């Protein structure tokens, strides 16, 4: 079920009303309702996916219980590895099996011999990368004794399948989300209004920004040979906003809906395109995944505490794995490696934590230096997005090769002023709202008629400039 679909507009009010009217003050009923509605939400894509999520829940719940009673370190480690193998095994099979087989065949062909292995016709379950990492965080935290395993299986099922963030995150930590299923949720008016406001902003990002940019990004990326360098640059620019609007829009909707149900999810995006260097960008982009890799991969590998070689190795590992997490394609691996290359100089010069505050904090406009820094950071991420978007690495290099020609300085063949106008409006709102959790969070200073007029304006813009309906990009991951 898509957030931007009619069925979800019917589903959400029904679940919301039942949740607060029937389930109010009865924690088990609330959890049951969340589990049933989450399974319905997920099963709407394909009911067979439900067995996978149920199996994953049973395995990790059972291992959590066993870890509690097992004192022997070797046995505890074994239990942890069972959980990792099951979860990563599912992920590996559904997402990466064909990639590994193809890569193996290609390697043999490269060395002049032929390998005959058939790939499988596997359907990738929606959001498997997200809930796999979420359940893994539970087992690892229980193993590390950072979290007491839950005895309540229903609460655990609700935690794993929680529909607002099930298919595209934010990837929640068990330490943050699971305890919320053990507490009574109370309806708080201001929290619900705030949630609804975030949903509205998320929908605007998705329907107006991402879907419209997608039309042009697809047009240009599908036929790059037809366009000049300036148009190719514009294509990458549109893709940068497509992916930002799409993914951060989904996160906003997920966080907003969770607030409607009385939950607090972690922030996933913090205005990343206002970053002054790539380290800041990575503290602001897909925060739940970056911190997951930091805590469960980078730090266990030694982090940046070792020597220079270890720093370089660990940085490459975390970025390449992060790229590979996005999909079974070399493009994502190159995208990750390229970001590692961007990041390493800052890390090695110990300048990766220079820009930890808000850009132009307390000011209306940034300084010229800040503008230059933001533009440079945006430009290098733009180059990396070309790899992320291209069908294969060769196409990405060809795209960049065609882009960096003299035609880069010509007038683009495609110049959609309406979309560029909408993007300017969007970025202005983001800029002035950057001190909030999301751009329009602090709109409360306006009086009600102006505030409501602004909401209506956003809805009318969605209404008038809605792009062609597209699935959220991150569903495929």
């Amino acid at each position: 079920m898509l957030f931007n679909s009619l069925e979800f507009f019917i589903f959400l009010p029904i679940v919301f009303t039942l949740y607060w009217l029937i389930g109010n003050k009865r924690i088990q009923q609330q959890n049951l309702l969340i589990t049933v509605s989450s399974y319905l939400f997920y099963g709407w894509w394909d009911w067979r996916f439900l067995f996978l999520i149920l199996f994953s829940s049973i395995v990790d719940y059972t291992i959590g219980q066993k870890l509690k009673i097992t004192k022997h370190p070797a046995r505890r480690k074994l239990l942890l590895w069972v959980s990792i193998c099951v979860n990563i095994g599912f992920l590996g099979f559904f997402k990466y099996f064909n990639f590994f087989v193809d890569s193996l065949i290609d390697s043999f062909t490269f060395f002049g011999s032929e390998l005959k292995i058939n790939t499988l016709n596997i359907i990738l379950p929606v959001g498997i990368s997200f809930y796999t990492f979420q359940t893994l965080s539970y087992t690892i935290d229980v193993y590390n004794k950072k979290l007491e395993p839950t005895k309540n299986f229903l609460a655990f099922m609700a935690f794993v399948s929680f529909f607002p963030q099930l298919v595209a995150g934010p990837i929640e930590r068990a330490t943050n989300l699971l305890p919320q299923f053990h507490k009574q949720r109370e309806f708080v008016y201001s929290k619900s209004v705030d949630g609804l406001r975030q949903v509205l902003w998320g929908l605007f990002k998705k329907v107006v920004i991402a879907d419209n940019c997608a039309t042009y990004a697809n047009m240009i990326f599908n036929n790059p040979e037809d366009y000049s360098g300036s148009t190719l640059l514009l294509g990458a620019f549109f893709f940068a906003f497509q992916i930002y609007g799409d993914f951060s829009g989904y996160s906003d909707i997920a966080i907003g809906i969770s607030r409607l149900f009385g939950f607090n999810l972690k922030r996933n995006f913090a205005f990343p395109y206002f970053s002054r260097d790539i380290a800041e960008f990575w503290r602001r982009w897909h925060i739940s995944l970056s911190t997951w890799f930091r805590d469960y991969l980078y730090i266990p590998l030694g982090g940046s505490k070792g020597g220079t070689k270890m720093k370089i190795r660990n940085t490459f590992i975390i970025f390449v794995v992060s790229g590979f997490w996005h999909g079974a394609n070399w493009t994502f691996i190159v995208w990750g490696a390229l970001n590692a290359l961007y990041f390493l100089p800052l890390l090695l010069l110990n300048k990766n934590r220079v820009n930890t505050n808000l850009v132009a904090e307390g000011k209306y406009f940034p300084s010229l230096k800040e503008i230059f820094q933001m533009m440079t950071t945006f430009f290098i991420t733009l180059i990396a997005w070309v790899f992320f978007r291209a069908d294969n690495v060769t196409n990405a290099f060809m795209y960049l090769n065609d882009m960096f020609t003299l035609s880069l300085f010509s007038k683009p063949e495609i110049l959609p002023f309406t979309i560029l106008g909408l993007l300017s409006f969007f970025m202005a709102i983001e800029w002035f709202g950057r001190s909030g959790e999301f751009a329009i969070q602090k709109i409360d200073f306006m009086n009600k008629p102006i505030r409501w007029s602004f909401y209506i304006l956003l809805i009318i813009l969605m209404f008038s400039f809605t792009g062609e309906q597209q699935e959220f990009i991150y569903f495929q991951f």
Partner: protein
Amino acid sequence: MKKFIINIAIFLVPLLVVGELVARYNHVMSEIPRRFIDSHGIQKYIPNQKGYWQGGEHYWEINSMGWPGELPKDFNNLNVIIGDSFIENFMNPIECHQSNYLKKLMPKYNFMEASRSGVTFIESLEISKQTDTLSPIKTIIFTGPNDIIESIEEIKKINDATQYSINQNTIIKGKMKSPGLKKALYSMKAIYYLYNRFRFSIPKIKKNSKNNSKPSQNKYKKNLSKVKLLLDYVKLNYDIENKLFVFSPKTNQDIYMLFKDNAFNVMLLDNSKDDKWSFDHDPHWTCYGHEQVAKQLKTKLLEDSMIIN
């Protein structure tokens, strides 16, 4: 909770008002003409309506007889054209209707259209019973394999379409499907737009998955015996002497040949050397496509000596 729901309800009022104004001003949805069922059980449009077509700068018009397009200035030397949404042709300006192109090509004759989207083959013949009272020289019925299959109740029952029942050997007249609800939905442009924009995605996927060509070809083949019974009924109950049945290009050959073998006067449109008849994202014909159809039709009518140039 109560305050929250009340505030949302209050917020929806100005939102719907502004949304409706914007929807109407921007023409985000086409206006849909209202229908009624006449005394003969034929679904027609309420006469003398006018409305805009989304994406175009033209208005569609329903004439005083309840059919889209203009009526001829007089009914002498009349030829009638019956068909579905292709002939209804809301997506093009009135100058691009078949009757206009044919009139330009054959000025001695008059042409009148009687069309409505979704008409079945058998419904076209029911309409022809009415138009026969105008004593036309020829009645040209545009049809296709789907219109023929949908004419038979035993293949697929469609409540709002006129069908032939093989078991009862009679015509079952179509009924209007939720006319009140449709009227309300079509009147509220903002709601109608949202309904269209955010349709249920699952049924859409299921529907699409059926759209591959192999099963649909089988559908025609396995129902040929039923189509034969339909044609037997038509020959007995309708005057097919002055009728020309025009089939769309790339039509199913089994069905087409069955018509031919049963002595129906048929014509198969040909766009094999010209693939520019339709819109990019809509199978309906553009003005150019309609013009080409009219040219082929004229040739056929001359060949068969149905008309004199």
